[in-house]
């Protein structure tokens, strides 16, 4: 069977800078960030960072109890994004539950609040007294996929991608492969994360969080800037609906773009320190999958977390692959690092940039760290007509992902002939 071309026909999201595509695109264009001071974190002894990227959407009472009793916040955010994406794609309920629609979804972990509920009791008092039957369902690693499956009555394949900060991008990559190779007609794919001091603490312990701007949420994170001092944790969820180009055309679906390439690999080296060579190889794998030369890419959406070692390694890897000053920016300067959600959110941002004809900048990038490689660092919204965008993400465990998104011409004629 010929590999099928795979397109995005639905997007849904909730993020610190908005919970619809239009809202986030306005934020990206106007430089509106979603970082807040977290007063509740003051009580956590020794936690240095006090900033978070918060989703302000009110989800209380939005869904029936029986459908949400096994959901912590991370699953609720994923449900909201997925509900939007399925509606946006115009998939009817009969198709969704027919078995033709599969699911690929991830988050770094399950709900931290549920972990506190379950482990806090069990691990300190060694008692089941007071433990709820649903705590585990909220905290298990596959909680998003499990809950989305039952909520939307999805009956196709389930791929649970819990690979830290590549959870969202891997889900989309594996969903793309599922459709491309005819394993599934339609895939719902994405990633989610809930903001919790537990994830802030993880990075704080490694001195990877921003702690020098705790009273100025507008000034951090600062990816690639010489004054950056680490990442700001955020939350959110992003979901896309993927299907074959032919199917989308046949049903007259709106197409946001075509996923033309995906590469993923593992550094096989350090568990947390990124490797320039592994990152570069993931980008090359995606280019090879797309049958493209690096010169064809109009813009690279960086992982760009604002950690010293990550920024330097990523910019160097990007320069190594592109051998030119390719346009480059990090959306995390707006949202903070949304961990399991970031790969999905950032790919949706890229689809929005193709739709709206501009490239979003890196906020707070005043002076590029001289140790970062020479690239075209975008510092203000830039009018553009990008046809091919690469979105990169990197995770603990040395997992690297690179997705390439292509524009579909208005008339329906593909920009990319495919390979």
């Amino acid at each position, binding site marked *: 069977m010929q590999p099928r071309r795979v397109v995005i026909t639905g997007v849904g999201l909730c993020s610190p800078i908005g919970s619809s595509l239009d809202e986030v695109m306005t934020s990206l264009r106007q430089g509106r960030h979603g970082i807040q001071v977290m007063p509740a974190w003051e009580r956590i002894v020794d936690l240095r960072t006090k900033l978070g990227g918060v989703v302000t959407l009110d989800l209380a009472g939005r869904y029936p*109890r*029986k459908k949400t*009793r*096994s959901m912590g916040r991370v699953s609720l955010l994923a449900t909201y994004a997925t509900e939007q994406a399925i509606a946006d794609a115009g998939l009817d309920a009969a198709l969704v539950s027919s078995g033709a629609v599969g699911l690929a979804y991830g988050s770094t972990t399950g709900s931290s609040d549920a972990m506190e509920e379950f482990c806090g009791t069990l691990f300190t008092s060694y008692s089941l*007294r*007071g433990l*709820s*039957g*649903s705590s585990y369902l909220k905290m298990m690693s596959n909680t998003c996929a499990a809950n989305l499956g039952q909520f939307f009555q999805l009956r196709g394949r389930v791929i649970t991608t819990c690979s830290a900060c590549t959870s969202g991008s891997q889900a989309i990559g594996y969903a793309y492969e599922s459709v491309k190779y005819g394993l599934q007609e339609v895939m719902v794919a994405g990633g989610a994360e809930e903001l919790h001091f537990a994830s802030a603490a993880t990075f704080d312990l490694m001195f990877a969080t921003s702690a020098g701007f705790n009273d100025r949420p507008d000034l951090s994170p600062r990816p690639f800037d010489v004054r950056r001092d680490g990442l700001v944790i955020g939350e959110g969820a992003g979901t896309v609906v993927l299907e074959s180009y032919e199917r989308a055309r046949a049903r007259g679906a709106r197409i946001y773009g075509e996923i033309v390439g995906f590469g993923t690999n593992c550094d096989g080296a350090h568990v947390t320190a990124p490797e320039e060579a592994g990152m570069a190889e993931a980008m090359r794998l995606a280019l090879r999958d797309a049958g493209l030369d690096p010169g064809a890419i109009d813009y690279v959406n960086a992982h760009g977390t604002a950690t010293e070692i990550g920024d330097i390694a990523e910019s160097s890897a990007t320069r190594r692959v592109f051998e030119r000053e390719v346009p480059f920016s990090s959306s995390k300067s707006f949202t903070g690092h949304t961990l399991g959600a970031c790969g999905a959110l950032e790919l949706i941002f890229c689809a929005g940039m193709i739709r709206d004809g501009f490239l979003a900048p890196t906020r707070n990038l005043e002076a590029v760290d001289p140790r970062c490689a020479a690239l075209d660092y975008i510092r203000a919204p830039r009018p553009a007509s990008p046809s091919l965008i690469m979105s990169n993400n990197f995770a603990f465990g040395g997992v690297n992902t690179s997705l390439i998104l292509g524009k579909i011409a208005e008339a329906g004629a593909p920009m990319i002939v495919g390979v």
Partner: protein
Amino acid sequence: MTRDEIYRHIVDILADTFELDRAEISAESKLFEELDLDSIDAVDLFVEIHALTGRRIEAEVARKVRTVEDVVALVESELAKAASA
């Protein structure tokens, strides 16, 4: 606790835990067919009963519970056992 007090307590638990309307709950209400509880809800109901009686309910006893009245009777008997223990 009188039987009446136990009943009111159980109604509170059902209403608060499962977002049920108090008006739709009666002693005869069938937990699964009428109040739409299921196996996961039952686990949470027995967690609440454990908290109320201080006694962990055995699975074979729990499985026999069908109505709100059954729950009240179970709690009454468990409280009596707890008092005589």
